[in-house]
């Protein structure tokens, strides 16, 4: 049996800490911590979805926050218009986001490199403007949605289970022939094509699957906050998701979880001092990008190997 890599150990420890957190929160009477950790885990699910295309598939999408938003809005519309329950909301959120991702992927995958990034960004922004113009759903201001779950520990563990499942699914997909083709395409398109693999189809499927995961995260966001707004769909939110995946370590199974944890921790730390925390966060992001490669997952693995 091979020894598990340090990153695998670290992600296991992180997941165990998350599992134990509700007990700690109850003991210290800090329900805010639970709210924060739920938000962290939902973001980590969205980042895991993005990691499938960005990290594993080498397709840098800057439109994924919009896909999360499509899921969030679909869940909200189901709740507001039909009064449907959590399952119905989740189903339509995943379906709508998958469809949106399929369309976004079909268009953007016709381009390469920088153009791909800019096209995903523009298409995400199109969805953002569409949501902002939906006056019956509050337009720019967003709208309150009937609460599906009353911030209980049950919801926390449901989100936790979904995050663990998404992380495990990433590890599984990486090792399947589909995942191999996807990873190979990120390294050398021509060789994958020469091996007789229909790379465009593989990539489009991955993009749609990634949209499904983000749609799930969107539905969870709606459940969690009982509120939807286009502000969460803008390109700067997509860029934040990309930052989480890259800072965590693109392509690494645990990358999204590390990156999201670092992001949320830094946000909490800085916003504790000032509401203008972007003033510090911006330069920190610049320095991290200039200084680091391989992200947190790469750093943990690399440091112990030396």
């Amino acid at each position, binding site marked *: 049996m091979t020894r598990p890599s340090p990153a695998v150990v670290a992600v296991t420890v992180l997941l165990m800490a998350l599992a134990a957190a509700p007990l700690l929160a109850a003991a210290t009477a800090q329900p805010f911590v639970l709210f924060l950790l739920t938000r962290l885990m939902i973001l980590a699910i969205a980042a895991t979805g993005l990691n499938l295309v960005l990290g594993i598939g080498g397709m840098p999408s800057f439109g994924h926050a919009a896909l999360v938003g499509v899921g969030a809005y679909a869940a909200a519309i189901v709740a507001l218009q039909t009064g449907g329950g959590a399952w119905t909301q989740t189903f339509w959120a995943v379906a709508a986001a998958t469809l949106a991702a399929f369309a976004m992927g079909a268009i953007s995958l016709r*381009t390469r490199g920088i153009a791909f990034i800019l096209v995903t960004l523009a298409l995400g922004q199109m969805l953002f403007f569409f949501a902002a*113009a939906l006056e019956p759903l509050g337009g720019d201001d967003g709208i309150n949605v009937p609460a599906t779950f009353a911030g209980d520990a049950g919801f926390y563990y449901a989100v936790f289970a979904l995050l663990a499942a998404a992380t495990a699914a990433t590890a599984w997909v990486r090792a399947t022939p589909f995942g191999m083709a996807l990873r190979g395409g990120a390294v050398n398109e021509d060789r994958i094509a020469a091996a007789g693999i229909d790379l465009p189809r593989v990539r489009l499927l991955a993009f749609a699957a990634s949209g499904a995961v983000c749609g799930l995260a969107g539905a969870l966001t709606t459940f969690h906050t009982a509120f939807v707004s286009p502000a969460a769909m803008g390109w700067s939110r997509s860029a934040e998701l990309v930052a989480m995946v890259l800072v965590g370590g693109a392509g690494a199974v645990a990358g999204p979880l590390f990156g999201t944890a670092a992001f949320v921790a830094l946000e909490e730390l800085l916003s504790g001092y000032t509401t203008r925390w972007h003033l510090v966060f911006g330069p920190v992001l610049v320095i991290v990008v200039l200084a680091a490669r391989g992200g947190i997952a790469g750093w943990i693995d690399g440091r112990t190997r030396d």
Partner: protein
Amino acid sequence: MTLAFEQLLNGLQLGVLLYLVAAGLTLVFGVMRVVNLAHGSFYMLGAYFVVAFASWTGSLMAGAVLALAATTAVALVVERLVIARLYRREPLDQLLATFGIVLFFDELAPLVWGPAGLTLALPPGLAAGVQLLPDLAVPVWRLVILAAGGLVAAGLGIVVARTRTGAWIRAGAADPETAQTLGVNLPLLFRGVFALGAALAGLAGILTAPLLTVQSGMGNDILVLAFVVVVLGGLGSMRGALAASLALGILDTAGRAALPELLAAVLSPEAADTAAPALSSMVVYVAMAAFLWARPDGLFPAPRR
């Protein structure tokens, strides 16, 4: 007829502003292969600076000149501190690092100039209308915008095609290593091109400041449209940027003007009222998607290097 002409002018004005932003973006990409998300910040800074300097000097022209200089100065600092370290990095690294710059400036602006939006009143001479048609008067300032766009497009065309500096820029875009071997001062060229691009974005911000509320984040919306322009025109192509800017400007304006009536013809009035703003804001993006489907490399694809 008058209405159509007025919409055409509106479309051209949006197109010209887009061109000023997109020209710098595509120039910087063409020569340095850097995609700069902070390009919209220079647009925003230009607008903030002109409001501040115009009220300080009491003159719009002096304010505009100072604002242009200040924006360029900030761009040179940003180039030295961050951009110069990104020239050989992955596109994703470039985007994330410049995204950090966006966050910084979007937070710095309200800190310096206050969280409320600023407005800039035009002097009477520039706000006065010019009677273009019997029943259509257009403020002088809007003609100034169109003229500035035309001058910049012509000036850039002449500089790039006919001057020694232009030859350096073309050489830098075609093959930077060879250009350096042949004596082009590459770091200086890169710095100059970056400053020029930022100045153009700043100029767009200065021109647009009297027409809208100057506020934090204003650069981000036009930046995305400028990206659409750059992709549609062909990455790195100046004439592509010009053609795509004007086309998008006119298309966007026409869509916003015509869609409500078109929808009202096929939908109930209530449904049309709801759908029109949502759909008209999507027109340019749908057009982009359709165009890229047919020509993924844009209007004037740049030769690969």
